[in-house]
């Protein structure tokens, strides 16, 4: 019989404070072939053979990552050059950190940086909880057909392009849209044009994002919900827990891990989010409201042909995003969560 805690039974239990008995002699040594430290797991060769199917399946994604993720990073050397299309990277003159000096001294860049953080914070605050709430709501729908229908309708806008989404918003909220026109016909002389108003733009952006992506983003949370054992709900219901208590003590804790993972990944996109959405609306609301780092990098780098400047902005953006992700991951680990990976 094994005692509780897994400790082997002892014939003469040790008195509290009594000296520790001497350690048993070491086991006889294994033959040399078996002396490898087993705690390090099987050898690389064995692991390669064991996992070859998985590795082969991963290869295309890896190639994709190398070709489109890592190889273009060679272009980052442009950030340290005065790049000229006609001379190419090999013959363009080196300027060390001149592009970065110009970047950090540019008030337009800092405006774009702060505006990115502002828009992202509003988006995080208003958008992030919505898919969780929606997922919990969908989960509580008992009719399978209704659930599938509602989910499909909510997911559909994800497949619309930003141009279409913004046009739809324009048709409803724009100065000549359905709502302002209704107000005009009912005595409001100058109804607000939300599509060109810089002050409310941050909320407009969040609203567009919620309409387009909230349904799609529920998918991950719905998957996490299916992982929660129904017996927990049954037990809680038997104990008299109502819907809110079950949600609070079973559903939400069940979603905690995936929520933190997505939050960290979101932070990684903090500085790069919404490029298309902002670029399309930048003219309408002005750069004061819609300039973000990606549009800044595109307009002053690509569009104006100053590739080195654009690359410097892009490199800064990438590095900051990486730091944000690593910091958020660290915080998650400190709180005992998995974060991006399990420690």
């Amino acid at each position, binding site marked *: 019989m094994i005692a509780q805690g897994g400790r082997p039974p002892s014939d003469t239990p040790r008195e509290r404070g009594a000296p520790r008995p001497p350690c048993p002699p070491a086991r006889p040594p294994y033959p040399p072939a078996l002396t490898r430290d087993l705690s390090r797991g099987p050898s690389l060769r064995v692991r390669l053979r064991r996992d070859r199917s998985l590795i082969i399946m991963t290869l295309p994604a890896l190639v994709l990552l190398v070709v489109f993720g890592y190889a273009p990073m060679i272009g980052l050397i442009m950030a340290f050059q005065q790049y*000229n*299309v*006609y001379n190419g990277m090999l013959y363009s003159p080196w300027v060390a950190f001149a592009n970065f000096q110009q970047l950090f001294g540019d008030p337009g860049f800092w405006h774009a940086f702060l505006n990115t953080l502002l828009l992202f914070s509003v988006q995080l605050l208003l958008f992030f909880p919505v898919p969780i709430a929606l997922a919990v709501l969908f989960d509580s729908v008992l009719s399978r057909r209704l659930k599938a229908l509602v989910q499909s309708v909510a997911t559909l806008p994800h497949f619309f392009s930003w141009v279409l989404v913004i*046009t739809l918003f*324009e048709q409803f909220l*724009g*100065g*000549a*849209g359905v709502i*302002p*026109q209704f107000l*005009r*016909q009912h005595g409001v002389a*100058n109804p607000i*044009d939300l*599509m*060109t108003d*810089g002050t409310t733009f941050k909320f407009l952006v969040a609203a567009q994002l919620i309409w387009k992506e909230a349904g799609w983003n529920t998918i991950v949370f719905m998957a996490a919900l299916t992982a929660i054992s129904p017996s927990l709900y049954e037990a809680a219901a038997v104990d008299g827990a109502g819907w809110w208590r079950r949600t609070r003590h079973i559903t939400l804790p069940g979603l905690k891990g995936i929520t933190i993972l997505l939050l960290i990944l979101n932070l990684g996109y903090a500085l790069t989010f919404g490029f298309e959405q902002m670029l399309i*609306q*930048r*003219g*309408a*609301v*002005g*750069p*004061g*409201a819609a300039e973000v780092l990606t549009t800044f990098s595109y*307009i002053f780098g690509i*569009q*104006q*042909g*100053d590739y080195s400047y654009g690359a410097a902005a892009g490199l800064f953006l990438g590095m900051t995003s990486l730091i944000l992700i690593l910091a958020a991951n660290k915080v998650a680990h400190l709180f005992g969560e998995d974060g991006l990976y399990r420690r």
Partner: protein
Amino acid sequence: MWNNKIYGLPIYPGNKIFAGAIFYRADILQALGLGTPAINSIQDLYDLGKEINDPKRGRWAFDDIMSYLIQPFGVPFNPPNWTTDSKGDLIAAWETPQVIEMINWEASIVRAGMMHPESIAFQVSSGTQRFQNGSMVITGGGIGGWNGYDAVAGKAANKSYERAALPPFTASGTGTPTIGLGSSASIFSYLNAGLSKSQVEECLRIADYIAAPFGSYEYTLTNFGAQGVDWSPSASGPALTATGQKNVQQTFNFLASAMNVQSVQSGYVDVVKAVCAWQQNAGKYSYKPLFWNMNVSVPPNLANALTATAFTASNGNILEEVVRGKSTVADFQAAVKSWQRNGGNALRTFFDGIRAKYGDQ
């Protein structure tokens, strides 16, 4: 290469090319009892806008017409956008005082609620639709868009649809209007410099054949193929047969082509007549901008200054921002100074050199 200049064969050339005009819905003005508008100054245009603007009924007076206000305000926007100041020195379009007057005027129509909200929101792609469905009465556009196809699309939206263009006028209402000519051709074909004299002559003979004028036997053969096989006569000109639709490709025109002609589409002869009458009238006021018809290639380091996207980008350049109240005239002036520092002045020096060496026409 002749006389230190490279010459090419012009494709689709024209001797009076205009960038565009300010158009209005003649049928709507008629219906409102305003008749044919007599616009002699920018104030007249503002007053007309006031009369037709009726947002409650879903009708706004103006589209974003800034690109076409360059004519009344006399702003030289045909690239490379140079003009001269009182001393005869080169200045760019955005350095002229008239450009500030122009953006201030357009800002005033935005403030007065006379510009269509979708135009303010840069919904450029639906601009034609807004004009055709009558939710916007005055717009700007290229002359090429004033044709039979436009009449067909417009009448599909509204049976009485009629597009008309304002003749050139001056913003102040005084003096003679001017309208800058666009390049006579924007596509060229070139002969290889290594060709022998006889080869060059042969190529030119072929080009001469392909560029035979509209209505000639050579023109019809090049553009429509053989009569009876590829095309047959119809009321609106040669009509391609089934064989012709398979065989005829108008690729020869990209080696050399005849002078541009206004052709009738979908039977709208009146539209072509109106276009020709407008062009004929505009021709009286036309002038050749600096460096007109000179294809100047600038060094790569000056290319950005020449493009000057801060003033020319199609969506959200600084001029458009001032018009929409998102930036101030002071911001615009700061952008001009920035342009001067970052290549603009160097570009001026470069064009001074071109002017000294080759002239400016």
